[in-house]
Each structure stands twice: as C-alpha cells, then as structure tokens.
C-alpha cells in the first residue's frame, strides 16, 4: 500500500545551522500530492507547504521542498534554523480522499 517514510525520529541542531528533514514515499500512482505539516508543542498540526509538481521548488515561511518523483522524495529544508522552528514535522501523501502521514520528525533547535 501507500506509505511515507521519515527516517529521523529526532533531529537536534544549533541555531543558525541548515535544516534538512528527509521524506520518501511509496505509491503506484503517478500523480501524488505531497505535504509537510508542522505541529508545535500543545498545538494541532497545520500545513507548512505542499506540492504536486515534479522538480519544482515550493517555499513557505523560510522552508522549502522539491518533489522528485524519480527518487520518490520530498525533503524539507531551511537555510538557517531558528529557535522557533522547534516542533514536530510530518510528511504526508495524498492520492485522493485521504492523507497518509509519516511517523514524524521532532526538530529541536538549541541556542
């Protein structure tokens, strides 16, 4: 079946360093939608960015990601981490009516 893999459970960074959170997916369908959701402590998940266009960079709030269908990847990046980026990040896959989420990556940014 369809699935999303986030290999890192916890990423710890020093403020100012670049961020890269990995996301790969599996599906037999050729036109998936990919999403990144962010969940801060004691809040609900909210959309960070999304894409369905192959090899096109999408950006929001300093974060960016590019959907690469050739490698089934949608990694999340940011050039310089901020303390406020500390949160739980979910990659998700949509093929129609439902979203399938990965297990999430907790990002902890230290001063």
């Amino acid at each position: 079946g369809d699935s999303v893999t986030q290999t890192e459970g916890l990423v710890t960074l020093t403020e100012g360093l670049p961020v890269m959170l990995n996301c790969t997916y599996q599906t037999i369908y050729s036109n998936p939608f990919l999403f990144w959701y962010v969940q801060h402590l004691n809040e609900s998940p909210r959309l960070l960015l999304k894409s369905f266009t192959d090899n096109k960079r999408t950006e929001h709030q300093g974060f960016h990601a590019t959907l690469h269908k050739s490698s089934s990847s949608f990694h999340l990046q940011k050039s310089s981490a901020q303390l406020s980026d500390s949160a739980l990040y979910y990659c998700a896959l949509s093929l129609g009516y439902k979203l399938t989420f990965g297990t999430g990556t907790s990002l902890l940014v230290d001063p």
Partner: protein
Amino acid sequence: EAAVTQSPRNKVAVTGGKVTLSCNQTNNHNNMYWYRQDTGHGLRLIHYSYGAGSTEKGDIPDGYKASRPSQENFSLILELATPSQTSVYFCASGPRGNTLYFGEGSRLIVV
C-alpha cells in the same frame, strides 16, 4: 481560517465503557477525518467521510465506529474502550485530497 472544534478536549474512561468524541466544522468541507496520534506512530487514520451519511474505514478502524449525521458533524465512537485506545485524537476537515484543517485534539485516557 478553517474552524474545527472537538469535544471533549479531555476524557478519562473506564475499560469497557462507551466513549463518543465529537467534531464540528464550519467550513462546509465535504471530507472529514479522525486520526489518532501516538509517539513513534505519527498520525494514523481511523475513519473518514466524504459527506453526510457516509463513513469509510481508514488504516486502523478496529475498535472504532464513526457517524456523519450532517455536513458539519463527525463523531468517533468507542463502544468498548480499552487501555490501548489511550491516545490523542484529532478530527480534521478538508477539500478532496488537499489541505487538512485540524481541530484542537481530544486527549483520551482509558483506565
């Protein structure tokens, strides 16, 4: 901004008891979803609905029922609650295959 509200926000239930989690959305979205969130598992889909009167099984439906009596309301029902159902439950609504808007979450403890 999308508005999804859940009740109760916190619930302690006894094993074998019946629990109903309620969700209301004011966005006129056709699709509604129930997820549970557990450390190490991420967000897992329990049930979802295409519209009033419809319910569909998600990835982990066992032990749960759902009801969608109207466009605005979507309930999750645990007929015989078990300790393994202790979790945080999120309701969400959204257009087909697109951005989900999450409620605040309902924390359930089954003792």
